[in-house]
């Protein structure tokens, strides 16, 4: 069921929509549902319980470890001899994604859902009754993380940029998957976070792709 409806309210909505679905005045879209009157819109009783959608919860629970790995990777820039523009990008990723982790944790907590730690690097989920630790899309494997941690200078720049471009693309994919799920992002904060991740990370992919052109050995 959707985010804010109690069952009886939902039935009332459905009935109202079905009864009036073919009325005129459908705001210009033929066959579109009638625009509800202001009286009808106000009659809806306020919801009493905040039931988060499964897709929204899963999105945040998966995105927290995804972000946590990005924070860890980006945190290496200064100690691993990253060049200046890569270092600036990394600093921004650390600050940006840490803040987003805090916001996602707040939202999960306030909905009474399991809150992953801000250093967790696997998404723990139940599949067929078994708990499994998963890497979210675009995340680096343990071996790739070791390789990145051992790299210095332009080797680090190259591995970092290649890894983070894919990591970001994975986040963008997670947003797309959320929007393709049932009951997706009807919550304002979830939608905002999803669209911010989409916008920010798409922008950074473009920026990193350009940086990569000038890293020795990346061409």
């Amino acid at each position, binding site marked *: 069921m959707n985010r804010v409806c109690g069952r009886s309210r939902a039935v009332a909505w459905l009935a109202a929509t079905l009864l009036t679905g073919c009325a005129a005045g459908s705001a210009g879209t033929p066959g579109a549902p009638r625009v509800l009157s202001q009286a009808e819109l106000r009659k809806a009783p306020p919801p009493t319980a905040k039931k988060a959608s499964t897709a929204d919860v899963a999105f945040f629970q998966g995105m927290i470890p995804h972000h946590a790995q990005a924070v860890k990777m980006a945190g290496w820039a200064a100690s691993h001899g990253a060049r200046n523009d890569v270092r600036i990008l990394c600093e921004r990723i650390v600050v940006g994604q840490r803040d*987003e982790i805090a916001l996602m944790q707040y939202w999960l907590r306030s909905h009474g859902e399991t809150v992953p730690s801000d250093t967790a690097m696997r998404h723990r989920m139940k599949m067929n009754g078994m708990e499994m630790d998963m890497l979210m899309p675009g995340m680096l494997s343990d071996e790739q993380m070791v390789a990145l941690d051992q790299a210095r200078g332009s080797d680090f720049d190259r591995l970092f940029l*290649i890894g983070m471009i894919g990591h970001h693309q994975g986040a963008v994919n997670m947003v797309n998957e959320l929007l393709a799920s049932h009951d997706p992002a009807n919550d304002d904060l979830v939608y905002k976070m999803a669209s911010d991740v989409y916008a920010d990370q798409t922008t950074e992919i473009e920026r990193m792709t350009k940086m990569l052109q000038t890293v020795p050995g990346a061409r």
Partner: protein
Amino acid sequence: MKHTRLLSLPVAVAVIYSAACAMNSSTSSTSTRSSVGAGELSMSMTPPSPDPRVGLRPGVMAKYPKDTTKRITITPAAEASWNMRLIANRPPAEPFVGVTHSDLGFKDHYVIQGNYDGYQVWDVANPRSPKLYDEYVCRGSQSDVSVYKNLIFVSGEATSGRLDCGTQGVADSVSQARLRGIRIFDATNLKNPKYIANVQTCRGSHTHTVVEDPNDKENIYVYISGSSGVRPESELPGCVDLSPDVDPRGEQFRIEVIQIPLAHPELSHVISKPGILQALGVAPRSNARSAQDSLERAAQQAARGGGAGGRGGAGGGRGGPPRAPSGPVQCHDITVYPAVGLAGGACGGYGLLLDISDVKNPKRLFAAADSNMQFWHSATFSNDGKKILFSDEWGGGSAPRCRSTDKYEWGSDALFTIEDGKEVFKSYYKMPAAQTRFENCVAHNGSLVPIPGRDVMIQAWYQGGVSLMDWTDISHPKEIAFFDRGPMDTVSAGANGGSWSIYWYNGFMYSSEIGRGLDVFELLPSAFITQHELDAAKTVHFDYLNVQGQQKMVWPTTFVLARAYVDQLQRSKGLASARLASLASEIDAAESAKGSARKTALTVLSAKLDGEAAASSDAAKVRMLSSTIKELAGMQ
């Protein structure tokens, strides 16, 4: 501009600031209240120190008894202000309590305030006492609003927007009940607007911009910007998340232009999709692609090795084909300035300068990039169209980016001059007071304040408050007034309050407070803005205002305008102080005179000023004064 000494002008000048003095306000009160307590009066050219915005007492929030999914303030945060005053606050109407307020549009003496669940109309005939005039429930974020004649346009981007206006969201990922695009209302009767049309677009409308075409009086145009992904073709035919060079219908690298026939707005439709982002520094496909491929292979190996089930690497999502990373595929916001034929497009990692002489087909002139700018958010032109300011909404407005640990250059404004169709970087500006981690804070929406002869802008910084900034000297922007509240609370991790936008409209500044409703501010005369300058600002009148459609400010020829310029010459020391004193009395004398005597006095004065201009260190201002006086003479 130099601010070097106190002005000795015949006005009562007060520099007032107050801190922690909001004990008298309550969330349910609709009474006019002042933010200013027993502050100290001063004429200081330096900002108050320590900054009273730092360490403001936070508010306390609790569950809203009428709807426990929402939280409301039970103890308001403390407030601080300098050179401006909060003259009214109106908490939201019942349906909008606890739901994000967004952008503002203005018409006559009404303010239309967007909200993720609809919009409210405030009657501000008396700005000190706004009255709720109408409320319209119709969910869809961001609900950015614009007005044009009898029409209201409202942006819908989120997946939860419904054609029937319901607030319950849309459960299906693909649904014919969903509205993403523009809603159009006939507000001939603002008390009872009619939802007459909508135009669905592929990525919805995060923001939009109303554009008048001087050569086409029968239609009005709306540029659609969206920062979200492209929806599937199964929901809206023709939506293809591909580059146009792969599929001619491809939605990437374009904006959408909607044509609204004024006689038949119900026939509004997308008329063009100009590719203003095409071929914009797109990284070479092959290299990007191979980097991506190697990553995908690695991710697939990792997925096999680590038991991960997620899809790795690049994919279009939602079943689309994979795509290579490339330049920005969309814009966040576009500000048009038809008077100079330009628009500023804030698009991903770029700040574009656009030629809009062909309204349906804007063309890119230049694209500025800047390593300190993460996400170009919106643009504001100087009144003469020779400068442009872009804001960077790093983190999307949900994050606290004004902590003492956050860089000045990040989440700030970048200021450019426009030279030969190019943007030339000059400086950054950021609201300077450190905020807490509980306050979402980053550069957001603002407008010019019509102080004649200067570039002054009021701007919203979410929970960082509002900041008035002088960017006349574009290399040294300077804060000259502010208002701020403490955190909404210390639980919610921010993002539930603060000023979304603040705009000057006909003498007052209206702020859309995300959680607290509508705020109205007035500027106070100060060492930085004299009473004459304020009075001259109030002579600029608009019948309506959408800030993304910038209108040229024109100051009617008045004696107060002349006096404002005299004050500015005093501030810049453009003339000797003895001469300024005699000037003031000569202007007074001319105004007291009648008929031909007045005309003669003004004509003589103007001629005298023309002679003095060359020797002045502020010759341009002397000439502006002279020409105003000449125009005054011509009016006699």
